[in-house]
């Protein structure tokens, strides 16, 4: 039986193992601003691999900056190279390095994507889609449980934006994600923009997707911007959150309640104030739906 590490919100608050409100992705262009001005952001998320050093355990300047930021803010690790869905075995060296980093900054939970990133030792540095089959469900749920055990803290899988789907998939993505989280005892990082982008790219109903995600598994949400590319939407993270995604976020808040949310912006990164405005807009939606209670009072 896999150990379920997804606590109720009340438990998580008691243990101070949770972030709350709307955080922002910390990127290198904003290091100086964040360290010197200390903007009023409740928490940050960072890309784990950027702080794990080139080789060995030296983290150099990126890790020094992360530790400096950590003195003022909670920080959550979000990975892009776990490669959980690969035909290759899990990379234990990577997981051990990730665990050391998570311990060092006491990341309340660790997240990565429901995808594969390469096979035969290669890394394509992209979030590649999986066929949603029973075989895949077994593989990924057992690995997610194993990863959570190695890390010794809650682990959550994020739904990626996808541009292709497999004909031999046996279930929709929401069912695959929900079942993986249940079987592994892990969490879900629900990216609302990715739900919308994939829904448009494959022609499914994004609200139906949300309604089929178990609320007790959702430990974090993402919001980001997409771009149009011909008849597809691409998850470029280089635009403000779009209106239909804000609308879908409102639906998600109604369904999942007070879940910490993060604004992601990875390309053509604007001044920090623009990210703060996006975060304020998300906070406004949350408060409108959840009432004017602060997040600790929502437990």
């Amino acid at each position, binding site marked *: 039986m896999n150990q379920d590490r997804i606590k109720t919100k009340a438990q998580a608050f008691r243990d101070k193992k949770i972030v709350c409100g709307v955080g922002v992705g910390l990127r290198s262009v904003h290091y100086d601003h964040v360290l010197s001005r200390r903007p009023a952001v409740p928490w940050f998320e960072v890309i784990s691999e950027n702080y794990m050093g*080139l080789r060995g355990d030296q983290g150099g300047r990126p890790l020094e900056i992360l530790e400096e930021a950590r003195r003022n803010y909670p920080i959550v690790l979000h990975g892009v190279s776990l490669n959980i869905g690969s035909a290759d075995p899990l990379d234990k060296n990577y997981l051990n390095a990730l665990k050391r980093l998570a311990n060092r900054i006491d990341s309340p939970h660790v997240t990565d994507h429901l995808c*594969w990133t390469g096979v035969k030792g290669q890394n394509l540095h992209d979030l590649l889609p999986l066929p949603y089959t029973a075989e895949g469900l077994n593989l990924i749920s057992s690995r997610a449980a194993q990863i959570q055990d190695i890390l010794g803290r809650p682990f959550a899988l994020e739904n990626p934006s996808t541009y292709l789907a*497999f004909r031999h998939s046996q279930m929709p993505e929401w069912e695959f994600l929900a079942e993986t989280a249940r079987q592994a005892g892990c969490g879900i990082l629900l990216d609302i923009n990715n739900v919308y982008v994939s829904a448009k790219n494959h022609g499914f109903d994004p609200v139906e997707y949300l309604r089929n995600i178990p609320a007790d598994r959702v430990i974090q949400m993402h919001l980001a911007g997409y771009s149009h590319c011909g008849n597809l939407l691409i998850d470029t993270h280089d635009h403000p959150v779009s209106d239909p995604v804000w609308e879908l976020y409102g639906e998600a808040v109604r369904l999942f309640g007070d879940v910490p949310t993060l604004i992601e912006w990875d390309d053509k990164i604007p001044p920090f104030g623009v990210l703060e405005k996006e975060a304020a807009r998300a906070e406004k939606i949350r408060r409108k739906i959840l009432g004017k209670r602060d997040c600790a009072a929502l437990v």
Partner: protein
Amino acid sequence: MASEIAPPWSKLQESLQKILTDSGGVNNALSNPSVQFLPHFLAETSTVSARERLGVYCDAYFLRILESLGSDFPTLKEFLGDKNFRHLIADYLKDHPSRFKNISLIGERLPKFVSRHPLNRKFGFLSDLSRLEWEVLSCLYRDRLSPLNLESLRQIPEKSWPKARFIFDPSVRFIELDWDVDRLWNERMLARAKKRSLKIKKSERSLLIVRDHQWVQVRALGLEESTALKRLHGGASLGNLCDFLENSRKFQVKPGDIQVWIHDWISSGVLKRLVFP
């Protein structure tokens, strides 16, 4: 939903990887009979074909790595211009696909690759320039020791100084180059046209690379300073160094010069500890 004929997990991924990393694009990749089964397993809509869908991933693979290498080798990219840089990276990825979790490691073998590339025959210093940029990047990822307090050195009795040995900051690297590409690197903020007009000369360069509080410093060392610093780095005591310089006919170093150097090496973060064995 045709699970009974689904290809094994590994075959599906290996074939997809082969298609997405083909530098000739999706159509070229799909001319290979070993992957032609794959589109049959991909869902299509009336508006977007399987090939178009594969194309999105294929473009993203190359562009993401191109962008990352462009930010890790900014001077090389600026000098070559977008077209040549793109061409170089496409060739590089054919030989050295990424096997790394951290995307920054992809550039590790670029300097060696550049030295054999036709572009280096045209601009002979490209290999030195890429080596310098790689050393700068890897320096940034090394840990630093806390600074050595110059005031605390005043407490050291004069007679102890000859025995002193210095501990260097772990980020320190020395590199020897054949071209003065450090000038180009130091002027990297200049507009491209101005950079192109900088004449890079063939001249032996001994460079010191070290992390500072903000980023990384690159400094060309003269023969005397380079010899002195490398001797200390190799474990010589200050007394050994002074004897060597005094007895060497090659160098014209005064004791005052050494004092100035040491002050400078400490304040620039090169020397971090003093030990008296």
